[in-house]
């Protein structure tokens, strides 16, 4: 992708991925990576920060004789995600107006 991803957008995407189901680190990485190029070393701090700020919670599930750490979204996280969604839609619209619609006007 040629566009750089700001930290708020990365937060939003991580929240969205986790909001679908309780999920674990490696899976989150894979899911996020389907839509954007982001290094693993960047993702852990995002998860940890969202957890410390109370937007995500962790719990352990036994899996093949070890505890795997799962993440789930909290109610505060849902509220934040909702804010991000609304912001994104507004942002997307305004960008589109210039970037795509504007292009058509210039071609007239």
């Amino acid at each position, binding site marked *: 992708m040629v566009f750089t991803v700001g930290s708020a957008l990365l937060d939003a995407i991580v929240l969205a991925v986790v909001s679908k189901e309780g999920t*674990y680190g*490696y899976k989150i990485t894979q899911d996020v990576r389907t839509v954007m190029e982001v290094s*693993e*070393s960047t993702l*852990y*701090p995002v998860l*940890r*920060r969202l957890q410390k700020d109370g937007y995500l919670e962790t719990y352990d599930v036994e899996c093949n004789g070890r505890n795997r750490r799962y993440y789930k979204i909290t109610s505060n996280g849902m509220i934040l995600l909702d804010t991000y969604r609304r912001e994104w839609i507004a942002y997307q619209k305004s960008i589109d107006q210039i970037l795509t619609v504007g292009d058509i006007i210039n071609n007239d």
Partner: protein
Amino acid sequence: MTKKEFLLELNIKIASLPEEERKEAIQYYSDFFDDCESDEKAMEELGSVEEVASKIIENFANAIATVNKKSSDDDEQTSTQTYDGLLFSFSKNKIKNLDFDFGAIEVIAIPGTKFLVETRGINPENFECRMNDSGTVIIRNKSRLANFKFWTHEHTGRFIPRILLTIPDKLTLETFRINLGAGRFECKDVNIITKESYLNVGAGNLVVKTLNSGLSNLRCMTGNLEIEGKMNGHINIDCYMGKTALQLSGNPDLYSYDAKVGLGSFEFNDFKKSGVSSDYANGKKENHFSVITGMGEVSIKIK
């Protein structure tokens, strides 16, 4: 590198962080390895340990340190003493000297691109970290007894102040000065080139690897001093009851020594003596060790 080695290395690299923060990170990356098809693939996705560690440190170095203290009436009560972590950054091109002086501290130095000083559990009022006009970075505590809790018997309140130093590779200095009362100072993967070095350890453990130094003054009271690298010119070693070990690269024929040994021992490559009040010397060359040891052990290996 295996999963175990990766996690071990990571744990060392993030040693300056609070324990909880370290545990979280290790759990996460341990899971990551277990969930990935193979260790090789995991490593490929993660990148280098340095990168992983520096991202974690960047984000969580300023976490607040908490101390659980027992109150005097023996009531199991928890109070929190919080010192924010401090972060200082210096332009590496301006640094000419490093002057480090601490009563009791644990320091780990790691290689990086910038010169950074990160603290944890250190009272800012008693901490000085600045660069003066002559390009000397001064890192010191204002009172030697400031971290007295280092030795407390109340294990619930035991809290070790720490500093993480990030040192750019091949940092070139005029003088490199470390005074360590007690605790630990480890500088293992960093290349330091200096005209003069003054390394002084009281009861602690001071390890400096890949040091390249001219005139050197080494003092070791009851502690442990380990140096690897190159040393040229005049090298003074005073070792009272501790242990001083140098592993240097160079041509042993270009070095000479004189050694006054009380009850301790002195070793220069294959020459090994321990003895009661003896003097040993083999001439005086341009590169010369002048050793005094009371009851300590001094070992110099040059290859």
